[in-house]
Structures are given as structure tokens and as C-alpha cells.
């Protein structure tokens, strides 16, 4: 289509652009519509629906984000070891390919739904909605969503989660929060993982990571954890339990008010 030189105007269609023709442009034909809506409003709408769904079932949903290989699945395995006696946990796993991570979680006796995204670099609210059809929400207190390993794209998509946890392993650079501000800013808790390796690595300083986070106006907890040695696990688990009891209070409040 070329509207510049008029080469698309032929004998056959000329009448359409002449006065009174279907494509005749007058000033009345041009309208500017103000919208001011989020570009991802479709996703946001679905995310809000997912959140309602979680809340109706009294489930706290936590989105775990990090680069690949920073220990999300390992952290979940250890978290399940500690908490599964007291809370009913479920996991949605996001990966480009394989059921490997879901299988590791199932081996712990916990329901796990694997989403394979193919080439997509992030989970979105629609994928979570699909996975929820197979998730026994009635039987859960806590649902972890392990996002695709990626420090960029997952940050832009609300899934309907209540909280974001971002992991940074000590085998990465301690300046990662400065390089990927969007994902670290979004965190409700930052976990510096694989802390048992710190003695072997002289180029990762947890204080530097903390400072980089502070420069992002990050005000939430930062915990140094190792799912291997259990360092920091108590702090992480008590934060989780505090969130669970807070969520329980929030869901029971409206019911009391309506009585």
C-alpha cells in the first residue's frame, strides 16, 4: 500500500477516494482516541482473575525469578522438606523444555505442574490460568510459581502472584541488581543463594549486592541462604510463615466484616 505517490489509485478504485467515496479523507474522518491503558492490559486482566482465584481458595502465590541455574528448584526442594509437614504446598514450574524440575518437586511428594513455554522467555498470566485447571488449589496453602530462568522478561508480566522473590546466586556478579534493576526492584525478598560457595569465590561480596539493591530504593529483606548447608533457611522460612499468616488474616477479614 502506498499513499505517498498515489500508485495504489487505479481506475477501478478512484471513485472510492473521490468526494463522497468510501475512502475519501475529510478532517472528520480522522479521530484521535485517548486510551491511557497499560500495554499489557490483557495480561493484567487475566492476572487479576488468577489472583482472585488464589484468594477464593485461600492460597498464597509466590513468583520465583532469577537467572538460569541460580538454584530456584533446589531452594524449593529444601523449603518443601522443612514446611511440608505444616503447610500444603504446590508448585508450577516454567521452563522452555523438559519436565525435569516438576519431577524433582513431585519426588518430594508435592503436586507440580510443568509449563513448557517452547521458545517463550517468560511465563504470562494466561499460561498460569491454563496450569490452574490442573492445580488442586483446594488442597493448598502455598503455591510457588518457578518462572523461566531469565532476569529480563519475567519482570514485565504479572501472573496474579501475591509476592515476588528474586534469587541471586553467589556464582553470579554482585552487581547484577544494577544491571537488571527492573526484576530486582520488583522483589519482595531477595535471596542470595548458594552461600556455602562464598569461601571459594573471592569476587562476590554480599555487601556489594546489598548496596546495589539499596541504590534501587530496595527496602525489603535480603537473605543469604544455602539450600545445601541450610544457612539462612530459618530466616527465609520464618519470612514465608509470616506471609502465610498475614495472607490468612487478609482472607478472613472480609468474611468477618460481612457477618
Amino acid at each position: 500500500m502506498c499513499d505517498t505517490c498515489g500508485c495504489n489509485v487505479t481506475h477501478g478504485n478512484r471513485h472510492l477516494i473521490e468526494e463522497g467515496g468510501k475512502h475519501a479523507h475529510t478532517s472528520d474522518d480522522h479521530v484521535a482516541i485517548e486510551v491511557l491503558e497499560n500495554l499489557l492490559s490483557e495480561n493484567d486482566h487475566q492476572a487479576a482473575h488468577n489472583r482472585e482465584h488464589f484468594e477464593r481458595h485461600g492460597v498464597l502465590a509466590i513468583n520465583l525469578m532469577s537467572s538460569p541455574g541460580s538454584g530456584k528448584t533446589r531452594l524449593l526442594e529444601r523449603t518443601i522438606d522443612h514446611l511440608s509437614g505444616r503447610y500444603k504446598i504446590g508448585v508450577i514450574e516454567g521452563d522452555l523444555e523438559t519436565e525435569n524440575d516438576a519431577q524433582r518437586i513431585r519426588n518430594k511428594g508435592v503436586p507440580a505442574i510443568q509449563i513448557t513455554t517452547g521458545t517463550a522467555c517468560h511465563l504470562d498470566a494466561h499460561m498460569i490460568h491454563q496450569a490452574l485447571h490442573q492445580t488442586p488449589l483446594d488442597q493448598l496453602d502455598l503455591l510457588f510459581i518457578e518462572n523461566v530462568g531469565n532476569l529480563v522478561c519475567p519482570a514485565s508480566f504479572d501472573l496474579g502472584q501475591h509476592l515476588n522473590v528474586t534469587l541471586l546466586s553467589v556464582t553470579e556478579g554482585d552487581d547484577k541488581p544494577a544491571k537488571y534493576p527492573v526484576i530486582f526492584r520488583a522483589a519482595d525478598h531477595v535471596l542470595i543463594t548458594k552461600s556455602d560457595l562464598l569461601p571459594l569465590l573471592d569476587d562476590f561480596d554480599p555487601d556489594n549486592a546489598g548496596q546495589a539493591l539499596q541504590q534501587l530504593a530496595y527496602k525489603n529483606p535480603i537473605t543469604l541462604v544455602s539450600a545445601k548447608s541450610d544457612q539462612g533457611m530459618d530466616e527465609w522460612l520464618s519470612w514465608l510463615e509470616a506471609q502465610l499468616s498475614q495472607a490468612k488474616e487478609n482472607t478472613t477479614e472480609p468474611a468477618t466484616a460481612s457477618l
Partner: protein
Amino acid sequence: MHELSVCQSMLRQVEEIAQREQAILVERIIIQIGPLSGVVPELLQQAFTIARCGTKAESAELVTETQPVRVHCLQCGYDSDAQANRLLCAKCGDYRTRLISGDELLLASVELTKN
């Protein structure tokens, strides 16, 4: 490359508006993007040239208005410019700030041709 997903979502919104307004063509799409939105305007432009094919926005122009990163200091109350990875108060240096601009990802307006 989540910009393609963002772009497809934007085009669905735009087509819905065009349909509602009974427009035949979308001439211009104006969006606002902040550096902390997680979306790169240049990549969105590239995605747009692919994603617009076969839609009413096939020949539309995508205009990006980038928004500045600005923070409000929760300690001293001062509003200042900041950088995406340095959101400190420019006056007192405190890190306890709130972002007041810079994370926008908005469809601001669309210009349509009717009839």
C-alpha cells in the same frame, strides 16, 4: 525478546478500539515507555514491523514517548531526576524513595481513519 508479546498485546487493544470506533485504518499509535518498564523501545519498534502485518495498523506509525525516571524522597520530600539503577534522592541521598515516573508501559492514544 518479550517485546513481541507486548507488541501483540498492544495490537489487540488497538484493533479492539478501531473496531469499536468503526475505523478502517489505524494511522498512529502513541505509547509511553519508562526505562524501568522492562521494555526496550527499539525492540518494540522492530517487533511492531512484524506484528502489525494483517492488522488495521498495517501502515500505522508507532510513536514512543519515553518518560524520565523520577523519584519522591520519603525522608525529605524532595522530587528529583534519577537513573534506572540509581534511585536515590538527589538532595539528601537517601534510598528510601518512591518512583513517581519511569516505569510506564502505556497505550496513550490512537489516531484512526474512519470511512
